[in-house]
């Protein structure tokens, strides 16, 4: 197998790293940047610190502070118009995946006419945008180092992705301090999102040794440190390990991509309006069990990252069942509810199966699976 090693975005990592944002933006030649964040970051004071830091470096700021979860295309188009009118020459996104993905969507439209839905999919033929600096404030998305952004398509009622050079940050500033105040529930959901990235990209159709190495390290750290960060949000070591694992998982899936678990996550998210990390966790154990039929070697490796020894003569069914059990136990250990506990209606859950098979990520699944089988996975996960 011949494979690409894609290491997309340079990153500056460490406690306090976000305070270099102004200096770095200046070094990139920016004079007027768009700052993208959500209301929550304004409320906790992080947004203002970043904006002041940028302004102190002699850079003008145009602020968009109303990012919505699962960024809708129409909002992205609106902000892009603001960016074009203001003639900004750089973008700083601070926040979780929604803020960073909004920035990527805006960048796609800086020099390419709207609507954004015409640019869904992997594109290398679009006009480039402006330099972007990404500052994650959750440990989950990995978006700061990937070349894709997930956008909600309002006209079609689903989520799709824009991918390509126009979605690449110029620099990522990875600062664990910014995650210290993340509530326990968010810590769990985003941490499981990072876990989903790592285990899915080890089982898709595009695994490579680099993605495997990054993903294995991410899984080991998440297994050890997420329960600690969940219980004690002020533990800086746990926060540092988690934000690092999240970035590793992001780098891993930049190479290997994620598949069915995310297709299910996108469909559940679009239907039940739940956070992305939670949505991706709900059927993850069943997805990895299904993957074992063709990717049993890597599924065994996932089990080993959980500290479980896999017998050499184990069948793919046994390996898949073990992975399912380990993942389910871990997800429960950080109090992620199942679909029944979330109050979903089983019939409505099963009805999303055809939508799953229409999701872009479905193409990367290790082997073809029918909507009927997806439905049986959803059923199995419903009250697991």
């Amino acid at each position, binding site marked *: *197998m*011949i*494979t*690409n090693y894609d290491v997309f975005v340079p990153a500056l990592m460490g406690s306090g790293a976000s305070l270099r944002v102004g200096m770095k933006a200046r070094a990139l030649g920016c004079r007027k940047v768009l700052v993208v964040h959500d209301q929550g970051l304004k409320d906790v004071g992080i947004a203002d610190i970043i904006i002041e830091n940028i302004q102190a470096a002699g850079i003008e700021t145009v602020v968009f502070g109303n990012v919505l979860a699962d960024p809708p295309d129409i909002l992205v188009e609106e902000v892009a118009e603001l960016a074009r009118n203001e003639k900004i020459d750089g973008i700083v996104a601070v926040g979780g995946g929604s803020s960073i993905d909004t920035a990527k969507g805006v960048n796609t439209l800086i020099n390419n006419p709207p609507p954004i839905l015409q640019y869904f999919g*992997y594109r290398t033929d679009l006009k480039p945008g402006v330099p972007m600096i990404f500052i994650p404030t959750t440990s989950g998305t990995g978006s700061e180092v990937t070349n894709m952004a997930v956008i909600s398509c309002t006209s079609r009622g689903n989520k799709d992705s824009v991918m390509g050079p126009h979605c690449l940050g110029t620099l990522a500033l990875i600062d664990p301090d910014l995650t210290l105040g993340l509530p326990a529930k968010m810590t769990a959901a985003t941490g499981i999102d990072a876990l989903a990235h790592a285990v899915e990209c080890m089982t*898709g*159709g*595009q695994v490579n040794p680099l993605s495997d190495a990054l993903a294995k390290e991410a899984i080991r750290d998440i297994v050890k440190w997420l329960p600690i960060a969940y219980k004690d949000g002020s533990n800086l070591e746990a926060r540092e390990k988690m934000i690092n694992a999240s970035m590793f998982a992001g780098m891993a899936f930049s190479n290997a*991509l994620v598949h069915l678990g995310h297709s299910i996550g996108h469909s559940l998210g679009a239907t039940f309006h739940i956070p992305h990390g939670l949505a991706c966790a709900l059927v993850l154990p069943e997805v990895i069990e299904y993957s074992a*039929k*063709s990717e049993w070697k890597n599924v065994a490796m996932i089990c080993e990252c959980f500290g479980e020894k896999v017998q050499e003569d184990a069948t793919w069914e046994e390996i898949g069942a073990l992975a399912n059990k380990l993942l389910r136990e871990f997800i429960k250990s950080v109090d992620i509810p199942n679909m029944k506990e979330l109050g979903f209606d089983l019939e409505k859950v099963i009805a999303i199966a055809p939508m799953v098979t229409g999701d872009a990520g*479905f*193409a*990367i*699944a*290790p*082997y*073809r*699976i*029918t909507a009927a089988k997806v439905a049986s996975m959803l059923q199995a996960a419903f009250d697991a």
Partner: protein
Amino acid sequence: MWSKLTVNMKKLTVTKDKIEEDLAELGGRSLIAQYMIKRIPPQCDPLGSQNRVVICTGLFAGTKLTTAHRLSIGSKSPLTGGIKESNSGGNAAYQMANQGIKMIEVLDVPEESGLWILHIGADGNATLKDAAIYKGVNNYEFAEAMKETYGDNCAVISIGCAGERLYKNASIQITEFKSGHPSRAAARGGIAAVLGSKGLKAVVIEEPSEKFKVTYADETKFKEVCLQLNKVIAEGAKTDPFSIIGTVATTDISGASGILPVDNFSGKFFGDYEKVGAQAFLDKLKSGGGKNKISCQPGCVVHCSNCYNDPNGNYITSGFEYETIALFGPNCHISDLDAIARMDRLCDDIGVDTMETANSIAVCMDAGKIEWGDIPAVMGLLNELKEGTEFGNLLGQGCEAVGLHLGCKRIPVVKHQSMAGYDPRNTKGTGITYATSPMGADHTAGLTMGRAFDDAGRTGQAYASGKLQVAMCFADSMMCLFAFAHAVPVLPLLGELMAALYGGTSDFTRVATMGVTTLLTERGYNQMAGMTAKDDRLPEFFYTDRSPATGSVFDINDLELEVLFDF
């Protein structure tokens, strides 16, 4: 109401009836699949009395939809031993539609050998005419004779000496719109040999004195949606290299990426690919006074066809396509476009599939029978095919038969049919299509080149192949796939078009379901004919021998192939 002609070659009768209800809302490939599974025993001898040939138009024949007049020909294939639908451009489907004929079924075999023409006159009368005097007459001379007899606008569907000799690589040639050259081909799978076994030399269709009028469920709506679709397709065609240059434009991409087959699918890089590329082709057209941007059927806005002359301005061939150029060219280590054009002309004239034939020649080179790149030697072998010498007869049995006879190690076939102009190690999705298509190694069943993340990678390839194979099933039922490519952004309009013509739901699911049903029916037919999962694999060398151009092997696991058609 559309009619069908039934031609019984044992009784030598022609009857005209209404089209059967189960076929009325089908066309092209979808019609042939449903026709065959019910009416042609899968285990029959392809050249025996139980096999039939179906010649039909597409779902939108008789309407103004651009490229609605593809001609589909179906039969149990003497080459693959399975179901075969081979389609072509040209003016025949257009004239069939003008005559109000949706389908011609050819049944049985004559009791005594002979040769006949099915003639459909301007008055709509269809009769079998004795064609003994045309025995051994090849397609160019034959088409010319028909034009002289029946006028310039008549459409001719004919077989050459290859079909008469029951060659498994024999093609059915169809006259091109305006020029009348028999350069359009229903080439693959050797259906011409089935016509040969039935003694049917040709179907000749005159322009009727009164044109058939299509009955619409909602004519106003149809016209509105049709106009919208035609506009989108015409707009897309404006920047389409197939439209601006021709299918030869593919060489520039396939040559640069190792997809272009070289030296009998050795997987090597061909340094001279630009000599058989788009610019070289355009230069040749200019210097010889040739032409591109020719429509092979009336009303086509893609106009991918061409007319290719020698340097003195004398006509050599038309409908000169990428596949022919790739396989007679770099795959035989040849980079002389004029020489390849002469090979194409000879193939069209005697009526053989250029792909199957060129692959047979490449196998001869690989086995050392003739030298790589030896143009006179190639012409010599093609003349043997034409003359019907002992080796010529072997060449007529297809690439696999030639390769086995000569002990060639690389025989690039699936289901006994040889590959088109794409190396499956470097466009793996196309390799998956080759492996799993009920048609055998057929690129038109789902060419994924440029559609997956990385042509030589594994990711998304099975997905792309699966999606395309379904799409091609319905595209081949309604229009030319080059026009279809531009209709992809507005696919739901096809559902609306169906409803406006036939009535019923306008939901696109109707169209997609037809694609899935067709594919599964074809697979079912092949299974009943005796094919198994083993027939859904590429030859072993693609899995084991690296492509020196890219270092890639065909590393798609069996599981991905086995579950591809789980719907």
